[in-house]
């Protein structure tokens, strides 16, 4: 099975974050979490999950939706679908 580059994931994620949180430039790294981004509320969390699902063509389970609290969590979740 194909491996997916972490760099590609981060690049795609930062585009999504930019769209949702209306930020100009975002240097996305794994350590960034819900606390660091104003606007990362429950409403936008769903938008984030949905956007990741559409962008990467994956489906995130309800157990995982609640656990995704940092960028690193997202990267791990996406990688898990491609390995």
């Amino acid at each position, binding site marked *: 099975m*194909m491996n997916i580059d972490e760099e590609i994931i981060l690049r795609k994620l930062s585009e999504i974050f930019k*769209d949702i949180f209306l930020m100009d430039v975002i240097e996305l790294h794994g350590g960034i979490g819900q606390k660091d981004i104003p606007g990362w509320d429950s409403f936008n969390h769903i938008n984030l999950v*949905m956007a990741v699902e559409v962008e990467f063509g994956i489906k995130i389970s309800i157990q995982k939706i609640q656990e995704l609290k940092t960028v690193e969590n997202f990267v791990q979740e996406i990688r898990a679908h491609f390995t």
Partner: protein
Amino acid sequence: MDLEGWTIKGFWQIRENMLNKNSSTGLYWLPIYTDIEKKLDKIYKEDPVNLQNCSDLLNSQLNFLQLNRLGVILDRCFRRGNEFSWNGLRETKVAILSSATIEHLIPAIKISLLRRGLIAEIYTHDFGQYLQEVNNRESSLFKFDPNVVIIALDSENVIKNCRISSADPDQALNEAKLFFNNLWGRIKDGCKGQIIQQSIIPTQISLMGSAESYLIDSSAALIGNINYNLKNWASQSKVDMLSLDEHIQRVGFSTWHDRSLWHYSKQDISPQISPLYGDLVSRVIAARAGLTKKCLVLDLDNTLWGGVIGDDGIGGIRIGNGDPVGEAFLAFQKFVLELSKTGIILAVCSKNDLNKALEPFDSHPDMILKQNNFACFIANWDDKASNLRKIAAKLNIGLDSMVFVDDNPFERDLVRKELPMVFVPELPNDPSYYAQCISDSGCFERVNLTEDDRLRAKQYIDNIARSELETAYENIVDYLVSLDMRLKWGYFSEENLIRCTQLINKTNQFNITGSRYLDDEIQKLMADSKYKCIHFRLVDKFGDNGIISTVIIKEINKELICIDTWVMSCRVFGRNVEHAIFQVLIEVCKKNCIKKIIGNYIETGKNSYVAHLFEGLGFINLPKQNPGITSSWIYDLSQKNDTCDYFRIEAI
């Protein structure tokens, strides 16, 4: 399997292509611009936002995230309110009653409404509180005084409300009917907004598969039954339906409803489908407001047939059975013909020599469309934007009521730039999908179909014959006499109520006060002895024009009446019909011992046609009294009036 070349880069390329061509969730009939993100960034930083810069974005395909961003930008616009001139846009107040979470759908609804010329203020209630809102006459819902009330209930909520006493499916269906009628009744008691009932998204899981309907207490079967019957119940109660079934089938259920998100946040409709959902909602609202398209303008080469008539000749073009490509174009022609039978006016706008362009219509045996299906046929080498203007002028309709279909991206782009009010669908490459694309775009969505709608296309074609006759006469009166016009008038009744209301709400040019009325409001006026609601039908030697004008007069006192509403279809302009109508009004007034008639003109930006109407009818200007009224006029019935001898006036 050989995976060489199936690189990560290649994989993303394929995904990217999939996303761009993702026709299912997006509004694929709208153009995609490549620099949407840049445009959004640019507008986001603007202060104040210039709505003109947003118009490209409003008319392009956006995903749900881009819609959210544009929604934020536009909200900022709205908050500033009067710093913007919303030329041509109409305001409307929309309340959404829902048992599920709907906040994520609001940007899409607002933006889709803007695309159709409506600025919406949207009211939502606290989560799950819709019954409390409806059952309390003092609720903020009713204080909001909506023009439109959308009811969006999830299947669990409907079942909870309908299966109270037993598992018997018939009884459950009866209870569902009672529940909806009661809900609609209470809304109607509390406000005068038009109700739109959304079909129920069938989220209930079937237990037995194909034989599900035999299972008497199946929730899935019950929801199926309710959806099946809801259309009839709604139509009996004059409630408009928002039918999602067809779109759920086309796009796929799992794109519409995400079970994880339902449990996570009680979203019945998934965020990713919000662009389509918002568009569907706005279609019904716009159709009810009379803002649907009236005329389909078609290119010829590679639009109505395969190939180029000028190059390939009559034997070379592909149209007709026996050839797959020819059959695809034939199917499209059939669709166009059926559209015209629902009252859509057809026109041709083609870059061709006229005689070449007409050749297939005259002599190709397989053509379904004939020359006489078109109200206007323009083939020349001028640019298409100018030709579209010509068609609009000739048919006397607004450019904003036209749809232009052309296979050539260059022509589409040119028309979009020159005439942004014309709807130009992004046509697929494959002619097999032309009809589907136009249908999916919803441009001809209507809430009802009157007998006049069915006849309209023919009436426009008759009009062409009339104007040809007109050029044959040197004197306009001779021409009018030759038309042998009969003006038939009568009061509103159950049979013509829908058409009369539709005419009032659709008419912009000849509408003295910019009146708009709901069916229910008209019914109240009909029952009120202070009002007289009169309709006029015009018949001439070419045929029946249908109901072409309505007038509502209001008694102010025993001797004085005021013209509350007067609308007339632009199809009969230039034939002095307004004089004949006024003659009828004078007779009605004299019969009721009225001495004077007051007429008000309120400028709406679209009705300058009637700015001097009252003057022309012999009214005298009154000093300005009310700032909301552009000019007031009075007519003394003791004065002598001119009669129009070339009309035969008949009371029905």
